[in-house]
């Protein structure tokens, strides 16, 4: 059943994702970190579904759908940003700063 190790791995993956979001500046890497966090959550849902029932599996499909849509939109935005700035370093993309 491996519930404990599964949740531990999920937490580890999520933390790596958050750390990447905070520390890295490359838009593609940030995008990957988001995917990492989403999948960490998926893992937690799958693991917990063994205990709490089939609802967890259902949510996972929704999350995967959203992640797919997000990947499509997100990559398109990154492509547009790159065309405009010749860079995807987010440190330089700060037009909305105060």
């Amino acid at each position, binding site marked *: 059943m491996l519930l404990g190790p599964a949740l531990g791995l999920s937490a580890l993956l999520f933390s790596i994702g*958050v750390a990447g*979001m*905070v*520390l*890295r*500046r490359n838009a593609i890497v*940030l995008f990957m970190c988001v995917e990492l966090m989403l999948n960490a959550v998926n893992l937690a849902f799958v693991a917990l579904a063994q205990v709490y029932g089939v609802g967890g599996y259902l949510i996972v499909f929704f999350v995967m759908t959203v992640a797919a849509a997000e990947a499509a939109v997100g990559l398109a935005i990154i492509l547009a940003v790159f065309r405009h700035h010749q860079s995807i370093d*987010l*440190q330089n*993309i*700060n*037009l*909305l*700063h*105060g």
Partner: protein
Amino acid sequence: MTLSPLVVQAVHEASGGAAGPAARLAWLTIALPLLGVVINGLLSLTRARAKAVVSLVGPGVLLGAFAVAVAIFLELRAAPPEAPLVVTLWPWIHVGDLRIDLALQIDQLSSVMLLVVTGVSSLIHIYSVGYMGDDPGYARYFAYLNLFVAFMLILVLGANLPVLFIGWEGVGLCSYLLIGFWFTDKANADAGLKAFLANRIGDIGFLIAMFLLWQTMGALDFATVLSRAPGTLSAAAATWITLFLLLGCTGKSAQIPLYVWLPDAMAGPTPVSALIHAATMVTAGVYLVARTGVLFALAPTTGLITAGIGALTALFAATIGLRQHDIKKVLAYSTISQLGYMFLGVGVGGYTAGIFHLVTHAFFKALLFLGAGSVIHALHHAYHATHSHDDAQDMRNMGGLRRWLPLTCTLMWIATLAIAGIPPFAGFFSKDEILAAAFARGAEQPVYYLFYGIGAAAAFLTAVYMARLMAMTFHGATRVGEAEQGHLHEPPVSMTGPLVLLALLSLTGGVINLPAFAGGHEALEQWLEPVTHAATALRPLALPTGTTEEILLGAAIAIGVLGLWIGYRTTLGQPILPARSAPPETGFARVLYRKYYIDEIYDAVFVRPLVWLSDKVLWRVVDQGLVDGVLVGGGVVGSRWLGRLGSRLQSGQVGLYVLLFLVGAIWVLRAILG
């Protein structure tokens, strides 16, 4: 207007006797002048040249009101009511325990005032037709004048203090409008403002008196207040209430210390000076004291102060009148002085004496002002014809006018003899009664003997300055230029007619309260008895009789004759130079001419500090510094600073946002789980 017989909801009397048909129509006396206001006001806005209609409507509505006043008087005489008739027109303020109706009170006192106000107003309206005929603001003038009469009648007829206050404020407004009638001259507009502001100070006193009365008595209508006051009102409360009422009266009736506006009020047209600033409005204070006589009787201290203010004002203003050159200024100070007499009368508790003098003064002072108006009218036209810029009101430019204005001269002499207290003219009886009342009060408190002395001295000075006025204007060698002399002529009959009627009244006005020694039976005293008896019962006044009375009478006549003789001789005994070549006064004459520098003193003590406070403190420190600087400016700086701080967070760096989001998420989690 919604005034109609249908709204006369109820006529309730304290005891017996229903209001007759005329008393029920008392609202007409107010509604008719208001109708005149509407018609003349509309005409002044649309067709300023519609002279015929205005000449008809302006005096016409007043004659109608006078007819109603006569009907009311006759009805009251036929069936004298024991208690005042109160005609409630409509409920006005009903809040909690406060019950104020728009109600009119018809009793002996208000009917006398009604007759005087509508009668004298009618005459002055007719006079104005001639006097103001050439003025471009003719319709506007009559609209204001009608409005004044309407407010004056509200003041006189009001059955409670708030209704009286409507009239009180309304006549003040009309006074302001008419003083500044020729507002293109800044001095006139300033004079109107001065009158309005001086009256405001008094009005505060009136308001405070009303608040105190409501607090202590829980009622503001005369019937309740005056009947309950003797048992319920403490002496201290009565003193405070009457002192504040007195402050209001000193403002409206131009007594020390608030008299300063009245001389300046002469900037208005002369008929206005006669009507508002001599015959009617300025006597409102005397009327109020007589109306609330019971309260004043409960507060002998206020009575003493009232009498003292009156006596002092009578003497003080009379001395200033000795040295004025402007014919209207002399009459203005004379008015202040005579109002002082009335205050002396009502202050000592001689309410009838005060009202009596009010009535006779209305006759002879209106006559004096209108006579002066005739002189000014004649000189003004003469100067106009010769394009001279001399002052048509300066008596130094007159002299010997008897040759050209014989009728005006004769009529003004009648008024002069009346005001100087020469029997059998009206002023003799009323002035004598006031002095006798002051003398009688002296038996209780010797200080009233002093007031009597001051009053007698003022009577002497009155005779002196009036003889001086007549001598400078009508007698001696003329100082009118040769060119102007051909243009001098008597005014039209619309102006001389009212003068003749007023002269008849000045001559015979004493009849209304002819004392026993002259074969009368004090008709006014008896007529007013139902109104004044409550007050006189609290503070009885025994007028001197027998030898004392005869000595007082002899002294009064001697004072009057001597004053006239001295005034006439000294004025004509020295050469008078025309205004443009006259040297400035020296010594005490200069102090009198400059009115004891009271205006300058008030300016230095009140006006300048107030302007300084407003400019340097209220404007520059409070408004610019505190409000604009600290509050408005501080708010701007504060929100800008907060905005800067907030915008720092908006760095545009995704990492920072995520970090903050994380911190927030953890914090929320902690709050939920912990």
